[in-house]
């Protein structure tokens, strides 16, 4: 890749860091670059430090790197938090020159442990405890500084518009900082103005002021910064090579749009970070345009708690409506009892779980993949469920469609694992294709055959009463039994309100009709009927949807652009690395393994497990052994303390991984830190358990 640089901007929460980053990402994406942006923020509404790191590349990437090439700072805290992130030798800091004299004691949002570390660093370098001191340290490492007096730009804006109030309108600092950044990176002015106008399209007055501020700021760089240093700055080498039909998406839009495409028409939720963005987005688009039919809609209901959210979801699914709820760890914990009810009653609800760091409220706005085992084992008693995890935003769109199919075909509750890292990623990816979303409803009665069932052909249908799924109009059946024993254990599923398909449900054990039973023989058979679903899932779900080799260890694989794999030979007799991962760790792991292969010539590959429960032992074993090497080093990469995927590997396959790369600081993994650790593993200098910590 010719272009691969990371731009970072920080500021107090509520100061427009996010909209600034949106403008930046939009401009770069429109110019044809790929974007991978991530947002970090405190559990706070106004004042605490938040920042965005946007990686701009001319090829596809799946993660952030450690560090930044250009930092834009309009407040002191951003400098204190990130001056050390900026790479020496080509890296730069654009900042509001009015903040230079601010000392650490004046920034009250700098928390104790951080201030201690900061002071130690500054003191060791002999720098004063001010913004100027921090900047001095950066400069001594070869970072270029671009001081710009932001107030003067506002003053000129006030003058030009004849509106003196604008002279103090610091809300515009984000737009100014972004503009200066783009100017330094060599972006032309016109697309910038367009993007600003587009982002504020709904508020014409705001848009106008922002466009004017951007225009002034664009020219200001030459006025304030010396030409030599701006010339030396790293630039975007363009134009980027964007494929047609690229979209710029926020992480939560993948599952939201996926649900809309999948025909999910009911979603109940209780607000929680980072899950509620999805529901709010769905409600914003609650009216749905339907091909060749009247408009549809999604009823998005905000409930009094997560217990109600899952209860309503179950009630809605009983009417035959595809329905979901979306939550995070604390909410999921409250849903446990009802999850079991859905399990024993074979109700195909979908729960989207945007994990964050726990336990309790943990780090409410920070990343973690620490709920895997809790979800796999959630609820008392034994019942079948599916736990499925997506590794990227693009994947999450198509996976959401599949999740509804799995849930309905196997008549089990399904938990779709997402997380904060994915939710708060802003990324370019191929335009989602709703045409590729198949709707398979399993043995749901009263559905047209085409939308029904890939399991139907193989299935024996209901015992006795002659019904099977997907046969269009159903005949009245006084003998309908919701939980009829069938050959494969899946019974035809009626909906509330269907003529003559009355059924009963109960959280107690039940007979075939759904009435309570405590009969020991019936209980045993019912348990077996339900639990046999787990093997059925593994038999019927396509292997490629259970787990996949994201990067194969073969010499001639389909790498992104070149086939430069002779590098592998440089490994000589060294043991090859097999990295294994799940969920959002896949992106950074993928880039890291790719770096290891290309930059270091080490033979390495990556396996991603998507189906976490029932555990696809056969498929994973096949993938593991496909390299034909007994001496492979297996490395488990995930964002939690105990290596929960590793636990599942041990439990289900007796496999003990050789190394863990773990992170539980609440910050997402970068490809850089995984790559560094993989190198240590290849060198034989790594600990069994390596813990990553990058990120403010």
């Amino acid at each position, binding site marked *: 890749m010719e272009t691969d640089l990371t731009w970072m901007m920080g500021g107090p929460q509520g100061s427009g860091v996010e909209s600034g980053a949106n403008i930046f990402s939009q401009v770069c994406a429109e110019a044809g670059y790929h974007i991978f942006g991530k947002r970090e923020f405190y559990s706070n509404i106004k004042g605490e430090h938040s920042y965005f790191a946007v990686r701009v590349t001319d090829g596809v990437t799946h993660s952030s790197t450690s560090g930044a090439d250009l930092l834009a700072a309009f407040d002191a805290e951003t400098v204190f938090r990130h001056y050390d992130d900026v790479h020496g030798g080509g890296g730069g800091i654009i900042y509001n020159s009015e903040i230079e004299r601010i000392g650490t004691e004046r920034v009250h949002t700098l928390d104790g442990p951080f201030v201690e570390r900061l002071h130690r660093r500054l003191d060791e370098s002999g720098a004063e405890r001010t913004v100027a001191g921090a900047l001095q340290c950066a400069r001594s490492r070869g970072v270029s500084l671009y001081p710009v007096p932001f107030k003067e730009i506002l003053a000129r804006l006030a003058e030009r518009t004849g509106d003196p109030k604008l002279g103090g309108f610091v809300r515009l600092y984000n737009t100014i900082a972004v503009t200066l950044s783009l100017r330094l990176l060599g972006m032309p002015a016109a697309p910038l103005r367009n993007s600003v106008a587009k982002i504020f399209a709904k508020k014409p007055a705001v848009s106008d002021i922002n466009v004017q501020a951007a225009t002034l700021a664009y020219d200001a760089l030459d006025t304030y910064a010396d030409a030599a240093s701006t010339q030396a700055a790293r630039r975007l080498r363009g134009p980027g090579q964007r494929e047609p039909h690229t979209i710029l998406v926020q992480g939560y839009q993948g599952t939201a749009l996926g649900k809309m495409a999948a025909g999910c028409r009911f979603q109940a939720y209780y607000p929680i970070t980072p899950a509620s963005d999805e529901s709010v987005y769905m409600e914003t688009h609650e009216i*749905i345009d339907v091909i060749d039919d009247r408009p549809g809609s999604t009823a998005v209901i905000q409930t009094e708690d997560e217990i109600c959210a899952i209860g309503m979801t179950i009630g809605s699914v009983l009417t035959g409506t595809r329905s979901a709820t979306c939550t995070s760890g604390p909410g999921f914990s409250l849903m446990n009892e009802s999850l079991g009810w859905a399990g024993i009653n074979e109700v195909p609800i979908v729960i989207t779980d945007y994990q964050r760091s726990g336990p309790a409220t943990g780090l409410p706005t920070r990343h973690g993949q620490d709920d895997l085992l809790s979800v796999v084992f959630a609820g008392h008693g034994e019942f079948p469920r599916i736990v499925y995890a997506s590794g990227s935003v693009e994947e999450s769109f198509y996976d959401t469609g599949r999740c509804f199919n799995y849930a309905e075909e196997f008549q089990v509750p399904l938990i779709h694992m997402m997380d904060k890292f994915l939710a708060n990623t802003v990324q370019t990816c191929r335009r989602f294709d709703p045409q590729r979303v198949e709707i398979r409803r399993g043995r749901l009665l009263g559905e047209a055959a085409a939308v029904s069932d890939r399991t139907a052909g193989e299935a024996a249908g209901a015992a006795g009463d002659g019904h099977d799924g997907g046969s269009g109009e159903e005949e009245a059946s006084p003998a309908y039994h919701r939980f009829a024993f069938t050959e494969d254990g899946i019974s035809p599923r009626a909906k509330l309100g269907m003529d003559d398909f009355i059924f009963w449900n109960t959280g107690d054990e039940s007979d075939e009709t759904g009435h309570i039973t405590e009969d020991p023989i019936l209980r045993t058979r019912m348990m077996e009927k339900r639990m046999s679903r787990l093997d059925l899932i593994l038999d019927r779900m396509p292997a490629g949807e259970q787990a996949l080799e994201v990067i194969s260890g073969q010499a001639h694989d389909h790498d992104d652009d070149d086939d430069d794999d002779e590098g592998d030979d440089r490994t000589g007799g060294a043991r090859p690395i097999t990295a294994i991962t799940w969920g959002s760790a896949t992106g950074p792991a993928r880039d890291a393994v790719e770096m290891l292969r290309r930059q270091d010539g080490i033979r390495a590959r990556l396996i991603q497990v998507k189906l976490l429960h029932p555990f696809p032992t056969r498929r994973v074993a096949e993938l593991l052994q496909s390299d034909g090497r007994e001496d492979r080093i297996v490395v488990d990469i995930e964002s939690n303390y105990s290596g929960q995927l590793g636990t599942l590997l041990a439990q289900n396959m007796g496999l003990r991984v050789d190394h863990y790369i773990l992170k539980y600081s609440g910050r997402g993994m970068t490809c850089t830190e995984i790559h560094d650790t993989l190198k240590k593993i290849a060198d034989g200098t790594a600990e069994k358990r390596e813990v990553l910590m990058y990120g403010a």
Partner: protein
Amino acid sequence: MALRLADYKTDVHNDWCPGCGDFGIVNAIQMALAEMGVRRDKAAIFSGIGCSGKTSHYINTYGVHTLHGRVLTFAQGAKLANPEMTILAVGGDGDGLGIGAGHFVAAGRRNIDMTYVIFDNGVYGLTKGQASPTLKLGEKTKSLPSPNTNHSVNPIGLAVASGFTFVARGYSYDVRHLKYLLTQAVRHRGLSFLDVLQPCPTYNDINTRDWYAGKDLMKESLERHNRIYRLEDTKYDPTVNYDDQAENNRHLSQALTKSLEWGERIPTGVFYSNELTGPYSDRIRDKIPNYTENPPARQSIARADGTSNTNLEEILDSLEV
């Protein structure tokens, strides 16, 4: 085909204690459904957990026996997705006013068009007689080791304060009156609440059938002195007649005051009725104009070839760079 009372009965063995007040309530529900001619496949009984929770198994309509305290959550989801259904949620006083009290209040605020019936027996029947939220302070029912240390909740008052738009009380041994109240409640447009006084002969030895009949109040004379009376027999007017805040406030306060009456005289009948506050579906329709004709459960989601029929082009266009 006209439906008869028998059509609403299942042959599931009923295991309530002999003489339990629950029998009268189930009978009244079956009678009300038959009288209104509600089709069996267009009605669903949702129930909580407790002795009362078994109700859904005894009625031959769709029946969903849920979890302790959660009956309203399941029932509301079903009604929202398929508004054609006639939905009754039933459960114990512990279920609805103890563990499920949060849902009770939230449901009132939504005012979804369905009916909620609480079997008010003052005890936790199925767990062997502990104090329920409606048992009065200081009372000691049979299986309590010592007198109740909590104040009781006022179900009628709580319903009125939470936003239920039809609030009534029945008595499980007055089945005909109860049936009458149920038909009113089901026909009401909005969330209706019925507090049904239900003697539990096994565990509640205070609020017994005889107690409600006022036997203890019979002094020298052998004249009956029934505690229970009907609001219909008095000048009480529960109905909010015109859409006006003051009119509504008057009826709310009246209902609240009436709900405090307890002891020698216990009112039954309709305490509050307001159809001028529209049900939740009106509010959905404000946002989704064709919600009634095309609710979630009615919508087609796939094309003939089995792929999605959702058109996301406009949204995706706006995301394209």
